[in-house]
């Protein structure tokens, strides 16, 4: 063998050994700092592959529903907890140390190729509270981990969209609602997932989830709903175009006219955000051309709750500012002209707000100039007197 080739081989072998060495270096560090929590003393350092494989075995056991007694199950739960903590340590770094990209990538790859995400979601209700919280963080973090600059998570979810169904319906079970909700919000960062949810029947369910009696769960659902409606602009615009009728009918009747203060408040704020988003301008024009819609918003402005009044005003002004107001809007404004002017006269904020004042002045100017289009057909007052 020529010396040169041999040397090259040696060099190769050397390279390989250093790279595996660095991985070995990483793992013991993870284990050492975790030793307190590590309940079973394994001498051998675990690689990401080991961790995922062990966790998988435990999850499969839990998922099988085998009943070998409580103590056996508790032992398995503790072991699983330790593995999930190890994953967390690799992903988030330990004691302020930076996470190591290679270890994260390896772990991510194994996590998805071994279908651990599915097992974790399915087994979540069986885990201890602390493990559930760690599992949620781990799953959330995996959504953002690149492997060779590709987002494995997105591809995985595209092929496993039934998991998203599972996460969404989690809002119906208070035991897992907050955990599934936390995972779900990370998953819908992937456009393909957001599109799936938006185009699915699940969208209708959110109108109910937002109004669940537990504040913690309902507000979580509201936050996910908002994320769905705000994050992926083009997908949202497409969704709204295609689903305009039922979506805004439900939005008005179930949310804006809900008897629940929290629901109304969050909904009117979100409505403003949706309509004012430039990518939704077509939808906005359509929304502000309907008599039914202006009615809902005017009623919200008459509420006794200032925060709702203000957000309702920010939507109402769009109806007024529309330069191509259809007759039905003009007629509503004309029929209520004096009451609206009286209302705006007393409508002030506790603190100065230049934007609000400018908008208000413009709205008042527009209303003053409103003339009836069909004087005969105006059927009188649509609203009771506005209490100021």
């Amino acid at each position: 063998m020529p010396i040169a080739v041999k040397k090259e081989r040696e060099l190769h072998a050397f390279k390989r050994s250093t790279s595996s060495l660095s991985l070995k270096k990483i793992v013991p560090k993870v284990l050492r700092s975790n030793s307190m929590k590590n309940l079973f003393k394994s001498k051998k350092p675990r690689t990401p592959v080991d961790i995922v494989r062990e966790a998988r075995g435990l999850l499969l056991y839990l998922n099988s529903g085998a009943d070998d007694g409580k103590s056996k199950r508790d032992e398995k739960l503790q072991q699983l907890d330790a593995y999930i903590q190890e994953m967390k340590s690799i992903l988030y770094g330990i004691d302020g140390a930076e996470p190591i990209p290679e270890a994260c990538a390896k772990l991510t790859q194994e996590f998805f190729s071994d279908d651990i995400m599915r097992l974790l979601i399915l087994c979540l209700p069986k885990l201890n509270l602390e493990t559930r919280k760690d599992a949620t963080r781990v799953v959330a973090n995996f959504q953002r981990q690149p492997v060779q600059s590709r987002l494995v998570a997105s591809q995985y979810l595209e092929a496993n969209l039934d998991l998203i169904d599972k996460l969404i319906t989690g809002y119906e079970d208070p035991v897992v609602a907050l955990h599934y909700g936390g995972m779900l919000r990370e998953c819908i960062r992937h456009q393909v997932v957001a599109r799936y949810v938006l185009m699915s029947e699940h969208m209708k369910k959110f109108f109910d989830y937002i109004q669940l009696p537990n504040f913690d769960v309902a507000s979580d659902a509201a936050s996910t709903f908002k994320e769905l409606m705000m994050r992926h602009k083009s997908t949202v615009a497409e969704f709204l175009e295609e689903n305009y009728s039922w979506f805004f009918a439900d939005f008005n009747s179930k949310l804006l006219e809900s008897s629940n203060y929290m629901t109304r408040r969050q909904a009117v704020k979100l409505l403003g955000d949706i309509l004012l988003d430039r990518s939704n301008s077509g939808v906005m024009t359509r929304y502000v051309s309907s008599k039914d819609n202006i009615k809902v918003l005017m009623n919200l402005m008459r509420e006794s709750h200032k925060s709702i009044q203000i957000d309702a005003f920010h939507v109402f002004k769009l109806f007024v500012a529309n330069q191509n107001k259809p007759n039905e809007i003009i007629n509503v404004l004309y029929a209520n002209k004096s009451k609206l002017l009286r209302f705006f006269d007393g409508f002030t904020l506790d603190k100065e707000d230049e934007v609000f004042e400018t908008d208000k002045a413009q709205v008042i100017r527009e209303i003053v100039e409103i003339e009836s289009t069909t004087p005969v057909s105006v059927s009188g007052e649509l609203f009771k007197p506005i209490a100021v």
Partner: protein
Amino acid sequence: MEHQSEKKFPLTAKDYKLYEEVGEGVSATVYRALCIPLNEIVAIKVLDLEKCNNDLDGIRREVQTMILIDHPNLLRAHCSFTTGHNLWVVMPYMAGGSCLHIMKSAYPDGFEEPVIATLLREVLKALVYLHSQGHIHRDVKAGNILIDSKGAVKLADFGVAACMYDTGDRQRSRNTFVGTPCWMAPEVMQQIHGYDFKADIWSFGITALELAHGHAPFSKYPPMKVLLMTLQNAPPGLDFERDKRFSKSFREMIAACLVKDPKKRPTSEKLLKHLFFKHAHSNEYLARTILDGLAPLGERFRLLKAKEADMLSQNKALYEDKEQLSQQEYIRGISGWNFNLEDLKNQAALIQDDLVSNSEDSSESRKHKDGQENLCFESASHSKAASHLEGELNVVHNLEDPLAAFPMKPLRALKGCFDVSENDKAADSPSL
């Protein structure tokens, strides 16, 4: 899984009967209450959502944290629901009230060392748990240390708590300016490099001094001065002369916490091993030593409130005395102020004059003046964030009228506006 108790707390207001007021925040009031179906006494925090302008998300996170917490030294929430524009958070009833209230009622000059060791060990256990979960409490102080009838100690109020794991992205550090000035770590005030779990260790050290003296160091100064003193003076500690009654290990424990460089402070886990905590006793000891003979919480709360109203009206007469301000805030137990960094700089200049003219210790004041040059408040991004807060914060403008001088809102109400963290922003932008 003990938290998932068989007990299901009902989610409607009519299932609870509110009794007397036992605590008061800015937008919230805490009541003792009966959960009728379970026949159990609870505490209910009633939060007026109309007073929480734009921080519904912050409130959601606070409540979720309280629901998902499971540690004997942390106050968890049984459940939460809205009724009208109020949010009700149902929690275990802590009959002893807060350490601040106990001190004000019966120990105006602070507790004995074994009591302090016991209280602090319990609080530290809570911090170890929180930190291991990635949470920074950010408002550790005697007013947030609660005791139940059996002497069990729980740390409360996650209103300003931050999570380093928020949104699935690892947060290297936080940059938000929250907390209460007297207890606030220097790095939190500076807002330059961000801060982490170690900020809680500083507050923990200040709380130790608070429990030893009955008040936090600098508590008689206005908040702006507190900021300057925290940044410029040597860290506070136990005095060799005045605090002779305390042990060496207590002195050293406090000194270990109150180091200006956060890196040099111990972690909560390490601090828990400190010799000082060997002096800690049991919960029963606390019940026996400090709770015995105390009037019921509601009654104490009423008396304190009356006393406070009294002092406030007296202060009205003396309102030239700016130093009363911080004390007033302290008496009211308000948990935070908001600052505009621009205002802060202006205010710093004002205080300079004050110190020269009416300080009781002129050598001290000269030291402040010399240190003035080194203040590092400038940071382009921060002052930008600060300027859009103008109008919210009137600390400087209202100085002539001390009673109106401090925004009565807690910091959390404005947290959204004040979050100037680069990390927070990065977390929002799609990194996909």
